[in-house]
């Protein structure tokens, strides 16, 4: 999502601590406080208030269960809040679900990943909560062989003004679907091709569409990286 609210948008000076709870499954609680920063391209959330009590914070709860030898279920919830340049409280919350299958005997040849995420931004002005942009995506990736992956993805963002399809003034709805295929000839390189189509609706009769083809090429040199799960 072009306007997604990720933790990535918020990696500035701050303190973060993660605690692996003693629960019998993997349950990790992360909390952090950060320096307030105004909205820009890298920071989609406005926490730019200069009030001395503005200490934006983040909480993330990640749970992961083994459904069987090969399949895991991951559930996460995130919440961040801070004061914006307008001195109002701004917040965002997200919930994500991932089901991942990596058959142990064929760990580098087979498998699939089903992912979904919902995000909502809002603010609190004078005690009342205002929902701002919200949206989500769902995707399915499947590994066909050691070198081939393919996938589909659908996403929708509502009340969104930052996507390219709008000139910034009128919030509307953007729906995008995409298919992709990736070729990974070695551990160190991949080529990925994606076709996507989007429909937008500003609620006032404007319904532009957008088609994109994206090619991505990656080559890693040097040390063998560890593979994130």
């Amino acid at each position: 999502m072009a306007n997604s609210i990720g933790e990535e948008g918020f990696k500035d000076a701050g303190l973060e601590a993660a605690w692996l709870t003693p629960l019998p499954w993997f349950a990790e609680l992360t909390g952090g406080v950060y320096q307030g920063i105004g909205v820009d391209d890298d920071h989609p959330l406005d926490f730019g208030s200069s009030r001395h009590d503005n200490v934006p914070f983040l909480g993330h709860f990640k749970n992961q269960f083994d459904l069987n030898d090969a399949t895991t279920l991951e559930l996460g919830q995130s919440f961040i809040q801070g004061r914006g340049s307008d001195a109002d409280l701004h917040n965002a919350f997200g919930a994500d679900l991932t089901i991942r299958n990596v058959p142990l005997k064929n760990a580098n040849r087979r498998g699939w990943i089903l992912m979904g995420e919902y995000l909502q931004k809002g603010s609190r002005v004078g005690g009342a909560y205002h929902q701002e942009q919200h949206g989500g995506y769902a995707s399915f990736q499947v590994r066909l062989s050691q070198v081939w992956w393919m996938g589909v993805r659908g996403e929708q963002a509502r009340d969104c003004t930052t996507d390219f399809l709008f000139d910034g003034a009128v919030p509307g709805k953007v729906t995008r679907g995409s298919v992709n295929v990736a070729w990974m000839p070695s551990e160190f390189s991949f080529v990925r091709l994606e076709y996507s189509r989007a429909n937008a609706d500003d609620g006032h009769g404007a319904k532009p569409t957008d088609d994109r083809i994206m090619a991505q090429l990656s080559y890693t040199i040097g040390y063998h990286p560890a593979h994130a799960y």
Partner: protein
Amino acid sequence: MKSLIRSLCVSILGLLASVPSFADLKVATSLSDLASVAQFVGGKHVTAQSLCPGYADPHFVPAKPSLMNAIQHADVFVSTGLELDAGWLPLVLPGSRNPNIQQGAKGFVDASDGITVLEKPTGTVSRAEGDIHPLGNPHYYADPKNLEIVASHLADVFSRRDPANAAEYAANAKAFQERMESSLAKWEKAMAPYKGASIVTYHPNFVYFADRFGLKLFGTVEPKPGIPPSPHYVNELAESMRKAGVKVVVYQPYYNADPNEQVAKRAGAIAVEVATEAGGLPGNDDVFAKFDVLVSSVAGALSGKSGGAR
């Protein structure tokens, strides 16, 4: 809500209470063979568990959070070393939040210490050579003698972590070595008729086995480590095997059987699924059974009589 919180607290307390007594060492390893050796050496004072089952590829273990959970309370972690687990262990160890077993901590063991490493690359390693092991070939556990070295190394480590039982660890390691020596004599006898015979393997993980039992490695089904073969390469390899009279292709259960079968078929050879890790196939649960099955499969295939385990 209150009762939910209460039952959650009760279950957390229950978990804390179920942590085993301190006399026992909880050992985790990145390879099933190492867990097997650790269990022989530790005897009743140790519970050893491998994060990678024998039927899974030790190069590519999915770094699942449940693995981090599994080693959260481990006292000792035994890594294969030589970067065999470099693709996943650097995520799993820190993820466990267990300070005792982090690299450099007292509970972390590199099992390759003291092993004579084969195939150490000379000069710089280029990515053009595939997913090569830059510190040398890490599949040393295919030589029984190397597991004897691991056993005495682990006896030292366990004794330091649990001095009360040091004598027992030393005695167990000695018994392990004696049993390995007498087994080795038996395996060498079984392999003796095939000294100098050539085999093809999927991945270069038979180097130490070949070195021990006097086999020649003719080539690998993967053209470069970690790179699957093209049809052209399969043909070329089969053709050169045919010319040289190479009759056996071996591969582990976690590799794709198809290219091995294709190479063998075109070369007029046989492809045999064999396990180089304990637990890789039914009936080879520990390191002794592993070599029993491995030696009889390879010897059987070389005799032309048997298709091995499959």
